[in-house]
């Protein structure tokens, strides 16, 4: 064993080199723990009873229980230790269904409209093409959060507030400039010779889009759909203002109201958070490779 004393220049260099080699790993590990530990902690703690959580918020539960999930799902929120004693039920089953309908409907509408319009703008002769482009770029710069009040006003007059349709239309409307420009730039980079050969075979424009271009673009379209799903599922401000009734609230709004209750046990809130997070988290973990390898160039 050779011992290198630290005052020798070689030894000092080696120590510095060591640190430089190890530093990136240390940083990467620290940031990984910072990002995933809170989520793991959320799910682990949601399996504890409130008394156990109060004594031991950091270690895994001795007797894991799904009672918190049952309580949150049914909306029979306990007060303190008493289960089933809540006066206003806040049922996460309802919120979950609402979020599912609103997110699903918004994705289908946005993707259909943006694919059709983006393809036409990129490939076909649209009358007033430059005007449409200018208008969409303008829409992209406008902070749509600041338009929630007039949108509420218009939808209230049309009796669209507190409905799934009202929220879906607002989501599609505020997302369309982004989605359309994204799809346009995607189709501009799509190889034109594929379409040329289809055109020779006598395919109509619409038939070509749905039967050839869209199936060939499945990968990028899935990534866009997942990012849209994430945005719609998590959206808060529009849902807060457009859906006031217990029957129409989405998960984000229901959760905020739930957590604001003074007597709601934190463990049941954690279960409600777990319910709200699970669908997007699972979707992401299934498609993680497509999402993290996506070549995202345009604005989100």
């Amino acid at each position, binding site marked *: 064993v050779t011992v290198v004393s630290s005052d020798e220049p070689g030894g000092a260099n080696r120590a510095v080199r060591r640190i430089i080699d190890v530093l*990136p*790993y240390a940083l*990467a590990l620290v*940031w*990984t723990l910072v*990002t*995933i530990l*809170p*989520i793991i*902690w*959320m799910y682990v*703690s949601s399996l504890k009873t409130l008394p156990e959580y*109060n004594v031991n*918020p*950091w270690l895994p539960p001795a007797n894991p229980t799904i009672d918190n999930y049952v309580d949150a799902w049914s909306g029979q929120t306990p007060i303190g230790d008493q289960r089933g004693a809540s006066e206003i039920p806040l049922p996460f089953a309802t919120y979950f269904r609402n979020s599912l309908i609103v997110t699903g409907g918004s994705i289908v509408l946005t993707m259909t*409209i*943006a694919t*059709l319009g983006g393809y*036409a703008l990129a490939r076909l*002769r*649209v009358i007033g093409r430059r005007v*449409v482009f200018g*208008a*969409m770029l303008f829409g992209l*710069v*406008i*902070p749509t*959060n*600041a*338009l929630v*009040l*007039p949108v509420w*006003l*218009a939808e209230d007059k049309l009796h669209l507030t507190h409905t799934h349709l009202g929220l879906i*239309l607002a989501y599609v*409307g*505020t997302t*369309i400039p982004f989605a359309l420009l994204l799809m346009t730039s995607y189709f501009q980079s799509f190889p034109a010779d594929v379409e040329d050969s289809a055109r020779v075979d006598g395919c109509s*424009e*619409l038939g070509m889009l749905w039967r050839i271009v869209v199936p060939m673009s499945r990968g990028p379209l899935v990534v866009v759909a997942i990012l849209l799903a994430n945005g719609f599922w*998590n959206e*808060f*401000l529009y849902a807060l203002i457009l859906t006031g009734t217990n029957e129409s609230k989405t998960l*984000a709004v229901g*959760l*905020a109201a739930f*957590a604001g209750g003074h007597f709601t046990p*934190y463990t049941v809130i*954690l279960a409600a*958070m777990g319910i*709200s*997070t699970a669908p*997007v988290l699972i*979707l*992401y973990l299934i498609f993680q490779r497509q999402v*993290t390898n996506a*070549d*995202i160039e345009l*604005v*989100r």
Partner: protein
Amino acid sequence: MSSLVISPRSGLRLTRYLRRHAFATASVLPAVAFLVLFIALPMVLVVGVSLTNWLGIGPIQKIVGLKNYESVLGSGGYLAALQITLVYTGTLTVVSTTFGFVLAAMIHHRLRGWRFFKVSWFIPIMLPSVVIAILWSGGVFATSSGFLDSTSRVLGLPVPENGWLGDSFHGQIAIIVTAIWASTGWPMLILSAAMEKIPKEFFEAASIDGATWLERTRFITVPLMWPVISTVITLQVVFGLKAFDLVYVMTGGGPGTSTTTIGMLMWQKAIGNGNFAVGSAAAVLIIITIVPLTILQRRLTAVSR
């Protein structure tokens, strides 16, 4: 146009013109309709309502001109909220873009396990902002049971007298820290994609010349990636300026008005105080503030390229 219809030859040309363009134009119409109904029209509407004294129910009573703007800009606290928003946005943008760049560099370096790291680092982006807010206010910043208080107790460190969300200084920092955690995944992912596209030869040549990592970053990576970096900065600035969800859930804008961002202020005026017209004036001010900032910021980063 009329001459086109009269002459049979041009009539034919018109039909052909229409047939060629009709499908294409019709395909874009739904998108244009949504833009008009949910962005253009609401903009007209919000300006109109902001000039009245309408509270949100019943018929509109009278037009008051710019009175609502005076009140929002004066005692209404818009300028204070703007200052809070700008500090929040500036800090968030600088820190999250820098973090994102360093994380992207580690992926580019092909650190062992980089795929796992990349997937983990993007996870916070997928979480609902309300969940993130409750996770941090209840799990990290909560008095006595929270992570910070528990850790401080063990280590014997002092904690803020009124809790981590209980005074303006700590409250602002807590929200910024939460926002950095919530949003760093985007800069990481976008910068990582851009870094992968830099030709390897650039780095190899520089390494042979004996350039250190910092020199390579300063003279190769950053200049080549500048267009993408500027896009990321724009994204983070826009994300920061529209701050609402975290503030609403974590502090409600308080204590006092110390964490009231412009988005929060709009909500407080229109819904909290039940004055729709004043809230609309705040909304118009938000648009007037954000649009030039977004455009200017794009210009600035484009020029300094």
